[in-house]
């Protein structure tokens, strides 16, 4: 998993643990946590595959833009790999 990642913007129904306020946002992998049962299946009693989970660090500037209270404060969240895509070069969020 490369260092810089972007959270998918998709908004599917169901039990999703990638918080909506971080979707479409780019962050840096803080650490890999190992593989955990996918909550999107687990929540419904379905056979749940084990997916890699990462702690991703976002700046307040990235999450809240100009409304950020302090641009360089951060939010760390656990995001499953299937919600992340690598970002090869610095791209500002549209």
């Amino acid at each position: 998993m490369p260092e810089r990642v972007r959270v998918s913007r998709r908004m599917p129904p169901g039990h999703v643990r990638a918080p909506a306020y971080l979707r479409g946002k780019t962050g840096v992998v803080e650490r890999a946590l190992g593989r955990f049962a996918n909550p999107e299946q687990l929540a419904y009693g379905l056979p749940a595959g084990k997916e890699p989970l990462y702690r991703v660090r976002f700046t307040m500037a990235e999450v809240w833009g100009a409304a950020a209270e302090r641009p360089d404060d951060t939010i760390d969240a656990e995001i499953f790999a299937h919600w992340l895509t690598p970002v090869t070069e610095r791209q500002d969020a549209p």
Partner: protein
Amino acid sequence: MPHDHHDHDHLSPSGHPYRKDQDHPLSYWQTMEIAVRELLVEKGVTSDAEIMAQIDRMDARSPADGARVVARAWTDPEFKARLLADASAASREMGFDIGALRLIAVENTAQVHNVIVCTLCSCYPRNLLGLPPDWYKQRAYRSRVVREPRKVLREFGLELPDDVTVRIHDSTADMRYIVLPRRPDGTEGMDEAALAALVTRDAMIGVGVARMPG
């Protein structure tokens, strides 16, 4: 007169408002919980005694357990290193029965202040600290602390210097978090038990800092 006359219907003889009782019918999910629990007991999957024992175990946990872990980390650098590497293993090493809890300890320094939240629900390191405070589960804290943490911390009475970075930790999946607060100045001669008394629940969530001695 301490109270307006028209309020008397809502006040007890001591002058305090009556607290509403739970006279409403069971909700759908309360009924569901009772039905599932009774079925599990009836089919021998669990027992009333086992459920009571589990409730007792959870009620026995308290922030004092986490405070002992913090005090050990303040006095034993090798334990602190193990805590920061694997907080679950370090807590078990001290004899705490934390079940399947996967705990990460985040350390406050002169440059960094950490704060814990669960924006999606109410994830909390219950197996070490016991049940969370009510405000931790409420929408106001959960939605605001990721957006304006410094303002929220100020409301808790904590003013952070400008050169300190705030790191919010949103417990979105399988990990739970505990803040390792900074050891207060003037505590050099204190033993582990005395130090643990300085560690508050709020300091381990990150909305406060450890108490000053004395």
